């Protein structure tokens, strides 16, 4: 207990932690010292003077700022003395001299610390009757954030947030005295990916949410603790709604996941849930056209359609796609329906069997906070997981942690000290082999004979240093992303990068970064063609009989088709019917439309009438995640609840409930093994089907979620040989195609937030030197074609792109990059030509 000391506030003895700030110590003792500039997640500053208290010093009593004072043993403070109260009252009066009294129209009004503290500590009058200083009131800092300079009380919180967490100091305080304003540099940018956090921490209504502006008063909101499903981090947030419409999202604290921050996508992209183009009712194809029908009719048609196909062509002619954006429950019930009732193992999702992810995802997001080296391979957290990117920035900036980045582009995080290695697609394995060799050498270990000779192109100083760093690191944070885990050659890349981790002695720290909200969970609950729930292979007889006993049915033994296999089988006529839940294969690759058109029967359940849905025989309106309940498993295996925040739009129904109805109609009645009528009951069944989830329940997931033990699943890693790399380019197709995720893209849910649709710069990116060679300038359109397809897109010049390569983002409606994938998959090469106008 040596860390605990005793201090005295107003004669009351309080136990405090040694070195903690007086504000925090007082809070523990039940005294809430008012603050504006101080924030638990930001460095102390002492700018606002609201926290003045009296302290006993050697020179008598003195006023000090409690928010910057670390407590000492035996120190004596007076919070409630007349002088301290006067000082705080005077501070408030000073702050209020120029603060406008427009609380009735201020979005902060009702949850405003300045209002609350004025009520509690304010003088109740002012010595000033003069006109207040006028500044800019209606100042859009960006498309997302509105600034009111008059309301600002100069607390520096926003400025410090952008400096300390985002490391993008775009805001500053300019001018002096009563004329001080917060602003950005004239014509400067305000574009941090988590810029919305400044809204949450602003103690007044100076920075407000521009999209939800004036659409709520804080006291009338229904508040639902939930999570974000835009990426695999699973940040905790609170959904505030009113009259069953989402009004805004605010961050919720969860130190293990997102600390107290969410990114702008999670905060602002709420429009999809009340988009007017949402599907309102079931549609069925009649005389070639999709017509509105009742739910009963739609379900009957589905049952008839599926049973016909199953009877005529066998159950393996039916396939189903789930989605990594949907809950565990929905994906679990889809798998259960397909396997247990239809009798087909053809189940998958886009990020499913095709992606060679570590089945245990990431060891833990929190590891980044005490890592001594950060290794990112084929992952770009700034675009894929902005909050994690902020943690990495903080580690690099505050603790001097070095970054090793293996990525074909110079991603934002490569501005921090470390090593950036940029292998072109196809060359990754050669680089990882060189790194493996370097790490083995650093550790003084034997070099296996199959490792290629040392004289390759990667025999560089940087590679040797990177190999040495990893071998010497104690607690490295090592992740690889989806870019390196799927498509042609992915098996070799994953083997090679695992080899590196093994060679450095850190194979237990190697993790996978899932870009989608529930890519981990959908696999855990068994939506994979070759695995049973619990990530157990289909051939595992023990697991099979356990699941058969739970579902009271016989399971098919033949491994099913994956996502790509199903598309191919549909094109070749072997697959006759499909259920597609929350996926849009045609939107991603328009040429897959022909395959789906060949199906005899297609069911789509989605929020919108997607390119896939317009080809369906029956379209079911699904409720969005804010309208339905569900649990999600994030990339660090943490299960978290997303409860229902608003009621489903029109006649839409949650995905899991649709599957319950479908099962009932398919079987004639709901069998005993399907009597899971609430989300808690479905989840309870999942915990029995998935051994890793054992012991969890809907209730005990709690507000911060529960992580399943990494040790519950063994993944044996050892040094393994693999096929060599390749070079897809040749004289005909000289440019490497680089693909990747962009935060502001045109994915279904994000594009449906119409206010933000213009934020993303959707374009192909070229290095300026290539642009000169191709005689294109920014804004021109270019045509890219590979052996199999072509797309056209406007071009942006970007020197973070390596020469001889072109970057095309995913979820780019105009230019579906999937069209270009050929025998090298996405690691292909393209030829580029300018499109003449």
């Amino acid at each position, binding site marked *: 207990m040596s860390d605990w000391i005793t201090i005295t506030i107003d004669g009351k003895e309080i136990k405090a932690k040694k070195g903690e700030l007086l504000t925090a110590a007082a809070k523990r003792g039940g005294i809430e010292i008012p603050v504006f500039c101080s924030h638990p997640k930001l460095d102390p500053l002492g700018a606002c003077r609201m926290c003045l208290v009296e302290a006993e010093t050697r020179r008598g009593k003195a006023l000090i700022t409690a928010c910057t004072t670390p407590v000492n043993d035996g120190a004596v403070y007076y919070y409630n003395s007349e002088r301290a109260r006067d000082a705080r009252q005077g501070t408030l009066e000073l702050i209020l001299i120029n603060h406008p009294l427009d609380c009735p129209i201020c979005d902060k009004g009702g949850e405003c610390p300045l209002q609350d503290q004025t009520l509690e500590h304010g003088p109740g009058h002012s010595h000033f009757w003069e006109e207040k200083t006028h500044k800019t009131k209606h100042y859009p800092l960006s498309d997302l954030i509105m600034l009111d300079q008059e309301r600002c009380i100069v607390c520096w919180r926003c400025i410090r947030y952008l400096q300390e967490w985002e490391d993008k100091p775009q805001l500053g305080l300019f*001018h002096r005295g009563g004329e001080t304003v917060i602003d950005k540099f004239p014509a400067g940018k305000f574009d941090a990916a988590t810029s919305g956090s400044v809204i949450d921490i602003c103690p007044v209504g100076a920075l407000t949410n521009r999209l939800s502006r004036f659409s709520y008063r804080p006291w009338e909101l229904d508040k639902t603790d939930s999570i974000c499903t835009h990426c695999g981090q699973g940040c905790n947030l609170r959904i505030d709604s009113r009259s069953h419409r989402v009004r805004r999202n605010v961050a919720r604290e969860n130190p293990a996941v997102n600390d107290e921050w969410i990114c702008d996508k999670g905060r602002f992209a709420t429009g999809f849930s009340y988009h007017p183009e949402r599907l309102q009712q079931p549609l069925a194809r009649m005389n070639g056209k999709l017509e509105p029908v009742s739910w009963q009719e739609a379900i009957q048609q589905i049952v008839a359609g599926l049973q016909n196909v199953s009877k005529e062509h066998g159950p393996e002619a039916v396939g189903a796609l789930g989605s990594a954006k949907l809950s565990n429950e929905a994906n679990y019930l889809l798998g259960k329906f397909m396997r247990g009732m239809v009798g087909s193992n053809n189940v998958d999702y886009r990020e499913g069997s095709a992606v060679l992810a570590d089945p245990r995802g990431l060891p833990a997001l929190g590891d980044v906070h005490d890592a001594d080296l950060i290794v990112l391979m084929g992952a770009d957290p700034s675009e894929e997981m902005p909050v994690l990117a902020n943690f990495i920035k903080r580690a690099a900036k505050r603790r001097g942690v070095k970054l090793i980045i293996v990525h074909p582009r110079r991603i934002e995080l490569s501005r921090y000290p470390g090593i950036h290695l940029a292998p072109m697609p196809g060359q990754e394995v050669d680089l990882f082999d060189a790194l493996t060799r370097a790490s083995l050498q650093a550790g003084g270990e034997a070099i296996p004979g199959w490792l290629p000779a040392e004289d390759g192109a990667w025999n560089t100083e940087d590679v040797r240093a990177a190999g040495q760093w990893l071998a010497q690191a104690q607690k490295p944070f090592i992740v690889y992303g989806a870019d390196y885990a799927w498509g042609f050659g992915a098996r070799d890349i994953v083997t090679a990068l695992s080899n590196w981790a093994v060679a450095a002695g850190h194979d237990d720290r190697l993790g996978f970064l899932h870009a989608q909200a529930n890519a981990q969970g959908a696999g855990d609950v068994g939506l994979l063609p070759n695995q049973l729930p619990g990530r157990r292979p289909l051939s595992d007889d023990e697991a099979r009989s356990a699941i058969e006993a739970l579902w009271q049915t016989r399971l098919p033994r033949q491994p099913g088709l994956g996502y790509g296999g199903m598309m191919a089988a549909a094109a070749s006529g072997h697959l006759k019917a499909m259920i597609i839940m929350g996926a849009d294969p045609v939107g991603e690759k328009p040429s897959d439309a022909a395959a789906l058109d060949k199906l005899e029967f297609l069911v789509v359940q989605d929020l919108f009438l997607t390119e896939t849905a317009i080809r369906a025989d029956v379209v079911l309106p699904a409720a969005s995640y804010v309208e339905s309940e569900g649990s999600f498993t994030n990339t660090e295996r943490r299960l978290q609840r997303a409860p229902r925040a608003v009621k489903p739009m029109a006649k839409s129904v949650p995905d899991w409930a649709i599957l319950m109805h479908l099962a009932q109609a398919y079987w004639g009645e709901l069998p005993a093994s399907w009597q899971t009528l609430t989300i808690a009951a479905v989840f309870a069944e999942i915990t029995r089907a998935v051994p890793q989830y054992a012991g969890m329940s809907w209730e005990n997931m709690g507000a911060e979620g529960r992580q399943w033990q990494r040790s519950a699943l063994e993944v044996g890693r050892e040094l393994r040989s693999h096929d060599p790399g390749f070079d897809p380019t040749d004289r005909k197709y000289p440019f490497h195609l680089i693909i990747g995720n962009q935060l502001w893209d045109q994915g279904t849910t994000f594009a449906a937030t119409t206010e933000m649709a213009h934020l993303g710069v959707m374009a192909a990116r070229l290095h300026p030197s290539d642009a000169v060679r191709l005689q294109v300038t920014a804004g021109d359109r270019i045509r890219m074609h590979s052996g199999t397809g072509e797309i056209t897109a406007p071009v942006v010049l970007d020197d973070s792109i390596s020469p001889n390569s072109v970057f095309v983002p995913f979820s780019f409606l105009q230019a579906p990059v999937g069209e270009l994938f050929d025998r090298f998959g996405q690691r292909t090469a393209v030829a580029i030509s300018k499109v003449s106008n």
Partner: protein
Amino acid sequence: MTQDNHNEIDLSLMDEIFTQYRHQAGALIPVLQKAQETYGYLPPDVLQLIARQLKIPLSKVYGVATFYAQFYLERRGRHILRLCDGTACHVKGTPILLTSLEDHFHLQPGETSEDNELTVEIVYCLGSCALAPVAVFDGKVMGRMKQNVLLNTIKKKTDIN
């Protein structure tokens, strides 16, 4: 004091300043002062260059530049006229002088003429109340200022139309 009438700013003039202060920590204010000596004011491009070179956030550089009254962010004229509008000068007729400047040159306090010849500024008390109203033209104090004297001085010493 070198000044160019083009909108293009020769940023290479900053090289020497950076060389001088390269190894000196906390040199922001001297660099800003030298830059202002060079250009007459602090153009946005120069501020951006300073931020990049000194590895200080642009928002901080701009904050310092706006904080101190000695830094000017807008182009100033070749000649600078300061008029005192402290109590004594005000009573003795500075407002009349200001009106005549407005009438003849369409210049308000704080403004610079379009041809960049003259900037008019107001100050509050130069400590020479006995000489009220006081004008300072290019650093030279002129007391007991009258309309015609002021206008003649400006016309004689500047090329203003």
